[in-house]
């Protein structure tokens, strides 16, 4: 209707609604829920959609890749450093292991590390931020000072030191990543809670006798969910990148397990004569980081009420 010029409107365009309150109050357009609106805006954003599809393909690859391949990730086939061909789609490495299989096993490990670190960050960070933001006063002051001091400590150095002490492995890696990573999430949650807790509906809920736990669960967290979700989506690529970076320093998951970082690290010395050994894990790292960043940015734009049309 909006595209019609006012002068073109005919009497037939209007209909009498009547004066019964029940009828005048009904909505002419189907109402769209908040998340429906968000997903519509997200899909309209081309970059975010490309990111989402890339991510879906990588996750499907991680689930099905090792399964459709005829080799296992640790099987040594006797064909050393073969270029990609019909049998070995992505080539083989110096021990004759199939890179196609290893790359998807690596995808499982890299993505698992990313998600696990992000979820632990989420749990600690949200709890810390929510308590600090809601309690306020002295507690808030002390909790945020602790967070300040932790951010002052250079993150990657701590992770490296922790890994040196704990011995490289999957779980030490996740612990090291999340020990330092939750502070950012705590900050974001706190600022969201601070913004929300003085709003009228929270006051109304309080007047009706809601306690803090109920407030957090029913009112504050659902409303802060957008910002938390965006932060989490952007934490995952950082974790994946850090994992690959640490693997490059020789602190990655131990052999014969493969993450993209350890594969890239193993493939690097063979760059001159077997470049595919670095190429495939490298490209997958780049694509995954791109995809998560694009989805995160897209989510942020889709959730921003200022951009709402």
């Amino acid at each position, binding site marked *: 209707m909006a595209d019609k010029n006012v002068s073109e409107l005919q009497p037939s365009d209007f209909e009498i609604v009547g004066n019964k309150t029940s009828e005048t109050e009904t909505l002419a357009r189907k109402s769209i829920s908040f998340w429906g609106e968000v997903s519509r805006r997200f899909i309209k954003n081309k*970059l975010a959609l490309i990111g989402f599809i890339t991510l879906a393909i990588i996750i499907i690859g991680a689930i099905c890749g090792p399964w459709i391949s005829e080799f296992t990730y640790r099987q040594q086939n006797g064909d050393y450093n073969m270029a990609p061909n019909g049998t070995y789609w992505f080539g083989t490495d110096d021990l004759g292991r199939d890179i196609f299989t290893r790359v998807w096993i690596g995808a499982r490990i890299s993505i698992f590390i990313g998600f696990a670190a992000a979820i632990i960050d989420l749990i600690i960070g949200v709890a810390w931020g929510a308590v600090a933001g809601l309690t306020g006063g002295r507690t808030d*002051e002390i909790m*945020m000072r602790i967070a*300040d*001091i932790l951010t*002052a*400590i*250079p*993150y*990657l*150095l*701590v992770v*490296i*030191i*922790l890994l*040196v*002490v704990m*011995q490289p492995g999957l779980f030490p890696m996740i612990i090291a990543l999340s020990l330092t990573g939750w502070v950012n999430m705590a900050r974001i949650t706190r600022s969201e809670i601070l913004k929300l807790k003085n709003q009228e509906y929270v006051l109304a809920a309080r007047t009706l006798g809601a306690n803090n736990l109920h407030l957090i669960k029913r009112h504050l967290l659902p409303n802060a969910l957008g910002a938390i979700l965006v932060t989490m989506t952007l934490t995952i690529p950082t974790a994946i*990148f850090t994992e*690959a*970076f640490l693997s*490059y*320093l*020789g*602190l990655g998951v131990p052999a014969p397990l493969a993450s993209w970082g350890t594969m*890239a690290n193993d493939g*690097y010395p063979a*760059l*001159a004569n077997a*470049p595919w050994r*670095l190429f495939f894990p*490298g490209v997958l*790292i*780049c*694509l995954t*980081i*791109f995809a998560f*960043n*694009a989805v995160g940015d897209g989510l942020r734009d889709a959730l921003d009420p200022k951009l709402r049309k």
Partner: protein
Amino acid sequence: MIKYLGQRLIYIVIALFLIITATFFLMRMAPGNPFASERALPPAIQESLNEKYGLDNPWYIQYKDYLVNSATGDFGTSMKYKYRETNDMIAEGFPISMTLGLEAMFIAVGFGVLIGTIAALFHNKWPDYLMSVLAVIGISVPSFVMAAVLQYYLALQAGWFPIAGWNGFIYSILPAIALASTPMAFIAKLTRSSMLEETNSEYVKMAKAKGISRWVVVFKHALRNALLPVVTYLAPLTAGIITGSFVIEEIFAIPGIGKYFVTSISNRDYTVIMGTTVFYSVILLLAVLIVDILYSFIDPRISLKGGKSNGR
């Protein structure tokens, strides 16, 4: 201002104390031993080694010694390479790492701002799209992959640059680009969005209305204000470039501190690990402080205050 500085310095001291304490206790828990080798050492030698490095003292004495030594800037002798002082390694590696780091920062800031400005000036035209694609690539490609790609195509295949080593300016170009690519993309994104905001603001419209030429408006008015977010990014940029240098120095065989640090990790050379960690922390914490102070000078709207208020 003074109060703010004082508070920040106290934070830095607390953070440093925590780092030193944490590294000390973690290293004591760490498995592996720098004296371990294929041949078992005779007990007498083991004992004298322990005595030399003070490992026979109870932990609190060791801890106290370590705190005092760190505070006076003495990080002890390498456990792996006898007669090598950690301080010497830092003194040797630091100028190299700093040259590389400054070059990378220069590339990141210079090209990042340039790319961002061009993208904003041609908003929604092809240069904007081209620059956005460049920024996406820069953010998505990790520095070590970028390093390998540069090394393979520009050094190995094309032969325009030396493959690795450290022997003059030309050796520093590829590592600096690899180190700078991700922060450059971030700066380009930041500059673009803040530049777009500025070009739509009243004072820019006013300047245009007065008939001032486009370039003067862009460079004298809009860009100066648009650069504020870039200045805030300088602190994480420094951190990123310092930590990024671990891998880049390893890949390009550059004898900077990053390489010593990585080697000391695989050697379990605890004194060197602890020394370089503390050194890096000091540099990083100071860099963040300097950026904050700079920021208050550049943006007069921000006043540095103690307490929880954020200026304004």
